[in-house]
């Protein structure tokens, strides 16, 4: 009978036989646990050290640990209801730490929390509250996995997950039930031993299943590389990327073993969502299976049995996977690492890929067009050449310099800069920043391009760069750091947003659906500036998937230069989503997105919305006498 004075019932006396049994069972459980967990730790420890890894500064790491692990922020924000349920299970585990310790201690007669003492009473009630929410949480998650069955959890039902859910439920139920019985009652002993056995069965299961994340993921989040798509440097003459087990680093191994199989990465992957082979979760699990079977000292290829080369080259590097992961797995360095292993060794044979590489080996741009065409464009638009005196260097990039649409965007941005009175110039010579070859894993070509460009920038005495292409921004600012010190660079949306109050506000009833480019949004965290600029030209409308959830246009990762894609076309799927908003205009901030949608929107025929870059939208509002 429940009374307000109910306390947690415990057996008052354990016989010697019981104590011995407890010790033996605990030892057996711990040994079984360690046998597997120790082996996993060994595999991680025996992996190659991560080059360029810095533990300090600790600030970011501590914050990430607090926010993402303790507060479960990403878990909840990205999938609210199941996330909250999981958070309660996690917080329940945390709250139960002392309870469990005391439980075993009292089993051998050295219990330290008294259910009738003031602290003990308070703590046991607190733990009871957590036990209740934990039980509710695990029950909800069980129903979701076994009855609702969301598709990213996979087709196969996981009996292992069901069993663990049952164990957790039993743990919470036996704890709560002990408030309703008396110390002396035989039920108390039964509850106590059931609770104990549930723990002792759970413990060795942990390292054999994805529940390893209980122990590893706090470390994984803490030790993550940071940044976004932080690609490690290659070290020495024998390092070509992730070719075999010997190339897997400690971080990669730790991350592979931390995978919780939640499928959040797959849920948001453009390739996985359009019927392609690539599934980011399976890439990580493939690495884990490799480590389980062969270990980190094997020289068998990582691609082949454990992961398909075809899948790895379907990635647009949009980053939705890495962004979503609640346990700190960084998918992009793994995918790009696998690509490096194939490309740097010549194992990747692809006609379009070879064509792209040969074009950049011989020439200056990824489109394979003669550089004199860029010169002609500069002359035709009467763009000033950068001579060291202007404030900005306007970097054209391959699209801005050679693509018809990219050129229109550059021309309009130049008009706006003229209107604002900004001094800028374009370089006489530019080579491709190397973004597509960097993402495809061709480090030889990337180094050549980065070094050549850094030389040009240094000789031209460039202090600041502005450009229309987020890929150029990312590559120049981050990826070139491996080969020198690039000058600061910003995207034209950031530039224009600073001058938003000086730019004319257009009176129009146009609705503009703004598409967040991957390399500007997820990669650079720039969401508000392009919207502020778009708002000058009409009413901004959001696509269903926007901001960090923006769905890739399909061009990234070098894929726009490769051949036909299988399955549905990513660009068409996204374009349909944008059209469905009913907006009159699609607003873009990346010439590649623009190029992909130009093709995809053509499918809508007459009914297609206009497609304009934010520079074009802005220039449209300028007084008519502003000419370049």
């Amino acid at each position, binding site marked *: 009978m429940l009374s307000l004075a109910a306390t947690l019932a415990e057996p008052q006396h354990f016989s010697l036989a019981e104590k011995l049994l407890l010790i033996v069972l605990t030892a057996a459980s711990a040994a079984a646990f360690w046998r597997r967990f120790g082996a996993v730790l060994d595999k991680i420890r025996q992996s190659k050290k991560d080059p360029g890894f810095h533990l300090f500064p600790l600030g970011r790491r501590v914050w990430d640990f607090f926010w993402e692990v303790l507060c479960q922020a990403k878990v909840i924000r990205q999938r609210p209801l199941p996330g909250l349920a999981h958070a309660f299970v996690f917080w329940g585990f945390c709250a139960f730490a002392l309870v469990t310790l005391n439980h075993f201690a009292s089993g051998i007669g050295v219990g330290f929390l008294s259910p009738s003492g003031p602290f003990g009473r308070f703590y046991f009630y607190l733990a009871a509250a957590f036990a209740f929410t934990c039980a509710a949480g695990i029950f909800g998650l069980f129903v979701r996995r076994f009855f609702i069955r969301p598709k990213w959890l996979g087709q196969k039902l996981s009996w292992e997950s069901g069993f663990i859910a049952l164990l957790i439920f039993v743990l919470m139920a036996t704890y709560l039930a002990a408030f309703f019985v008396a110390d002396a009652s035989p039920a108390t002993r039964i509850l106590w031993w059931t609770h104990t056995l549930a723990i002792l069965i759970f413990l060795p299961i942990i390292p054999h299943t994805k529940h390893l994340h209980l122990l590893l993921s706090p470390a994984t989040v803490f030790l993550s590389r940071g940044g976004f798509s932080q690609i490690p440097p*290659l070290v020495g*003459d*024998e390092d*070509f990327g992730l070719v075999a087990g010997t190339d897997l680093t400690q971080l990669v191994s730790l991350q592979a073993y931390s995978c919780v199989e939640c499928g959040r990465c797959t849920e948001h992957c453009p390739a996985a969502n359009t019927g392609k082979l690539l599934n980011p979760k399976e890439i990580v699990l493939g690495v884990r299976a490799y480590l389980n079977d062969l270990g980190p000292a094997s020289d068998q290829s990582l691609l082949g049995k454990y992961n398909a080369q075809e899948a790895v080259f379907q990635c647009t590097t949009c980053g939705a996977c890495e962004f979503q992961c609640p346990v700190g797995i960084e998918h992009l360095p793994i995918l790009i690492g696998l690509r490096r292993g194939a*490309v*740097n*060794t*010549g194992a990747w044979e692809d*006609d379009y*890929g*070879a064509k792209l*590489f*040969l074009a950049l*080996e*011989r*020439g200056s741009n990824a489109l394979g067009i*003669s*550089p*004199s065409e860029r010169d002609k464009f500069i002359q035709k638009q009467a763009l000033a050449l950068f001579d060291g005196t202007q404030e900005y260097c306007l970097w054209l990039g391959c699209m801005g310099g050679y693509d018809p649409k990219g050129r229109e965007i550059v021309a309009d941005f130049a008009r706006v800069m003229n209107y604002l009175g900004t001094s800028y110039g374009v370089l006489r010579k530019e080579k491709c920043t190397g973004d597509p070859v960097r993402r495809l894993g*061709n*480090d*030889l*070509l990337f180094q050549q391009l980065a070094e050549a460009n850094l030389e040009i920038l240094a000789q031209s005495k460039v202090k600041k760069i502005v450009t229309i292409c987020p890929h150029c921004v990312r590559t120049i600012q981050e990826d070139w750091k491996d080969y020198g010190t690039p000058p600061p660079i910003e995207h034209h949306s950031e530039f224009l947003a600073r001058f938003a109050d000086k730019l004319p506000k257009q009176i129009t009833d146009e609705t503009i659906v703004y598409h967040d480019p991957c390399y500007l949004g997820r990669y650079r965290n720039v969401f508000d500036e392009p919207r502020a600029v778009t708002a000058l030209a009409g009413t901004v409308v959001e696509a269903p998937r926007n901001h960090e959830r923006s769905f890739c246009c399909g061009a990234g990762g070098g894929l726009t230069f490769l051949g036909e894609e299988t399955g549905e076309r990513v660009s068409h799927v996204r374009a349909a989503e944008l059209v469905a908003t009913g907006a009159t205009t699609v607003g873009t901030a990346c010439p590649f997105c623009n190029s992909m949608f130009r093709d995809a929107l053509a499918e809508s025929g007459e009914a297609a919305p206009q497609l304009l870059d934010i520079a074009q939208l802005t220039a449209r509002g300028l007084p008519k006498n502003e000419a370049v």
Partner: protein
Amino acid sequence: MKIIVAIKQVPERDAQVRVDAAAKWIEASDLQYALNESDAYALEEALQLKEKHGGEVIVVTAGPERVGQTIREALAKGADRGIHIDCDDLESRDALGVARLLAAAVKPENADLLLTGLQSEDLGQGQTGVILAELLGLPHASLILHVEKTDSGLTVKRELEEGWFQTIELPTPAVLTIQSGGNKLRYATLMGIKRAKTKEVRRATAAELAVDAAPVVLLERVSLPQKQKSTQILPGTPKEAAAALVEKLKFEVRVL
């Protein structure tokens, strides 16, 4: 199979060329250089033969210091070693002179097969490979797209005009000049470049090779083509104009 590939470093295809002050050659400053296109196909053919039949691929080139870069590229793509004939005055030598240098450098190698590109992108004479064969006393075939090794030598596919091809059998050792487009070219890889660091590049000076350098063909003048445009309006009825047009195309322009 021991295969020698003679390669040439030429100005980049898209380079804006200007005639130099003496009007004897193009202005070399500010030029970017690259591997001659048909030589790249020759190298690819050699590498594929090596992959199929084993052996060694050696690249040989004549030129100043900068051609070392092209040799390294070839080594990075899979050639086993290189021979760099130091020569600062390549422009003043004719095809015979260059072929003499190459012949002197490669003769001691006793190769089974020598490949050159069909013609260079700068001078486009198409002669060096053929003269080389003559100097070495070897059979040759030109405009080759595909090479197969047989028990008795080689079977090669030769490109003629208007879509016709010729299949030729010849014994080894032999010289072949390779046409572009026969294979898919491989890209240079990081692994290739790293391995290339340890590959041997033998230097030989033009003086050491002691060949007769006096040119028999002199390049008198280099000029840019003059653009001419002339328009003729053909009068008369459509039938008359058509007849007049056919006349002109047959006898003046000579495309029919």
